[in-house]
């Protein structure tokens, strides 16, 4: 009797819980339910306020273009987006159209998650730069994603501060001039620095220095090094001298703001004139200044006798269509409109950097929706970019962490450039033969 009571009440409580729970929410994220020719497409992206608003506005405008298609927006910040998309792809619940980031593609294209876009009749590809598509959109001979915009590596310069500090802004920077100007500036006022760089940027600068000197990728696809001991010593010596002369803000201070450079107090208080960064970070970098501060862009530092400019351009983001989409034609048509249409381009402007499609770019420029500083960075980047791209090995995290180690040792003055170079080469050769053996 006692036992019955207990189990009985437990069952009642639990079933009550279940019923109440089930009625808590209804409807699932069904993609593409047809009711009366009505098609629903899910579109997911990450971004900030501006991108959300403009994209929602574009979706609203698309209702006029294709009244039978309803676009369901799924937008969020960058945090957690990658994990979410990967989970969704793994379980076939992804949105029909997704915004993706270039570094994820190597992983994601191991499986057939995405529609091959080269044979979609609704989708026009002629407005894109052919090299750009080959380099960033094609994986395993399939065109799986299209660039939403173009980002270029550039010097972001606080012109107002540079003028006040007596730093020229109308010259093309090479490694000597930037060292000289930086040294002069720091000698005049020891609280000021010419450049702001966390360890990520220092590694970039090191790579570019090497690439310009050798004309090769620093780590080659055949698991050998693209530079000699001498090259590494030269690059690290430059870095060591620049650090000592105060060209850069000391790494210990700058690295506190790794990944959130715009929060660095020295940048905000206009005590640093330049940052080498992707053009996409210009908006947050500028957002911390009062209205009257002018921010411009310039070509990144290029050696006078460079064998390769080492200027990089990359898609700001990519769009892909899920291979599981119920309505691939409608999705392709929407994507085509979003990428190329003049009306869409005028609404979206530069929320995903300068549009990659030439038609959209023209329309956005005509509408006055492209920030001139960003447009200039991209224009210069495209004009000077060379064919040399990062290969998978040179961005491998095990390889780059070795570089980070050596760079930090030299930047903090814990190793001489010679020691740093020797250590770097020895560690890299060990790691590369390791990686090759794993293949």
């Amino acid at each position, binding site marked *: 009797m006692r036992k019955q009571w207990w189990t009985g009440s437990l069952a009642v409580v*639990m079933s009550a819980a279940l019923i109440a729970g089930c009625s808590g*929410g209804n*409807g699932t994220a069904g993609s593409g339910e047809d009711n009366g020719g009505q098609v629903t497409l899910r579109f997911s992206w990450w971004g*900030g*306020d*501006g991108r959300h608003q403009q994209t929602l506005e574009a979706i609203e405008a698309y209702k006029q273009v294709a009244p039978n298609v309803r676009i369901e927006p799924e*937008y*969020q910040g960058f945090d957690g987006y990658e994990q979410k998309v990967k989970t969704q792809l793994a*379980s076939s619940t992804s949105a029909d159209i997704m915004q993706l980031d270039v570094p994820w593609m190597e992983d994601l294209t191991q499986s057939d998650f995405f529609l091959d876009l080269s044979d979609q009749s609704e989708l026009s590809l002629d407005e894109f730069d052919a090299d750009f598509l080959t380099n960033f959109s094609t994986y395993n001979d399939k065109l799986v994603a299209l660039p939403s915009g173009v980002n270029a590596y550039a010097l972001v310069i606080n012109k107002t501060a540079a003028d006040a500090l007596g730093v020229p802004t109308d010259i093309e920077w090479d490694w000597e001039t930037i060292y000289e100007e930086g040294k002069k500036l720091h000698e005049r006022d020891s609280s000021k620095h010419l450049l702001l760089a966390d360890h990520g940027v220092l590694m970039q600068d090191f790579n570019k220095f090497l690439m310009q000197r050798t004309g090769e990728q620093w780590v080659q696809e055949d698991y050998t090094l693209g530079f000699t001991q001498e090259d590494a010593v030269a690059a690290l010596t430059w870095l060591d001298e620049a650090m000592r002369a105060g060209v850069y803000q000391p790494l210990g201070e700058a690295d506190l703001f790794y990944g959130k450079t715009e929060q660095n107090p020295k940048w905000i208080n206009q005590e640093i004139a330049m940052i080498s960064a992707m053009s996409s970070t210009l908006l947050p970098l500028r957002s911390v200044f009062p209205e009257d501060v002018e921010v411009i862009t310039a070509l990144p530092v290029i050696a006078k006798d460079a064998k390769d400019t080492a200027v990089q351009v990359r898609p*700001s983001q990519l769009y892909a269509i899920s291979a599981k989409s119920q309505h691939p034609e409608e999705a392709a048509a929407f994507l085509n409109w979003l990428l190329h249409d003049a009306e869409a381009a005028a609404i979206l402007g530069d929320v995903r950097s300068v549009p990659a499609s030439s038609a959209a770019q023209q329309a956005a420029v005509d509408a006055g929706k492209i920030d001139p500083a960003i447009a200039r960075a991209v224009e210069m980047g495209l004009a000077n970019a060379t064919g040399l791209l990062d290969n998978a090995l040179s961005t491998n995290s095990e390889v780059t962490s070795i570089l980070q180690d050596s760079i930090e040792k030299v930047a903090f003055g814990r190793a001489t450039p010679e020691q740093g170079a020797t250590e770097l080469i020895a560690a890299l050769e060990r790691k590369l033969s390791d990686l090759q053996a794993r293949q």
Partner: protein
Amino acid sequence: MRSEPRNKWLSYLLLILFGLVMIYPLIWLFVSSFKTNQDIFGSSRLFADTYVWDSYKLGWQGTGLYGFDTFFKNTLILVIPVVIFTIVSSVIVAYGFARFNFPLKTLLFSLMMATLMLPDATILIPRYILFNELGWLDTYLPFIVPAAFATSAFFIYLMIQFYRGLPRDLDESATIDGCNSFTILTRVLLPLCKPAIFSVGLFQFMWTWNDFFNSIIYISSVSKFTVSLGLRLSLDASSAVSWNQVLAMSVVAVLPCILLFFLAQKYFVEGISTTGLKG
């Protein structure tokens, strides 16, 4: 004796100073919600030269189609059932483990404890696939239903430990007075468990309220976003972020947790569980 007042002043002074240090991040959060980006990151001073007053209004409106009124409503719809079900289910399951002997009890208990050691990340994908098969994605069911089945081993364990501290003599005297095993729980043990129940409720409330990762994985529609998702809605490395609005909404988001904590505080101290034996 004479030096006592001065000692008192000294200790109060120290306590106030220490308290200020502890509460400074919250004060900074509040004041910074009225500052510009430049003042928030550009100086370490608490107060700024210029203030903006519309950060709460603009932040509350949110981005795009939905504002924080939607996010708060969603969060309550999610959190309240989760907390209630967690309390009910944990109390009952823990009662079973603490007071009854049944076949395979040790094995089941070890299994339950083993789930406590399991990292969240390892069960994320299987759980996601399960909820997907059930058609529960983009609803709050992946949070509410598990709560109804006592899936938080931590809370069960917490309740079991508390039950173990209650003398079995209470159960026996209740049986003599005519209680069955369930009324022992409801009439005798539960009133004594109040502090533990409030701890379970408070913890679960705060964890669910602040949970970001599970929510972002299971919820896709912005119309169903919770507050913790709404706060990060506009954070992106390549966009200009109005930090004062983000901070303003953070202030609003921590208010319920703080209020609830102070309201429930007295129950933590109340109820010394063995007093029932006196007399």
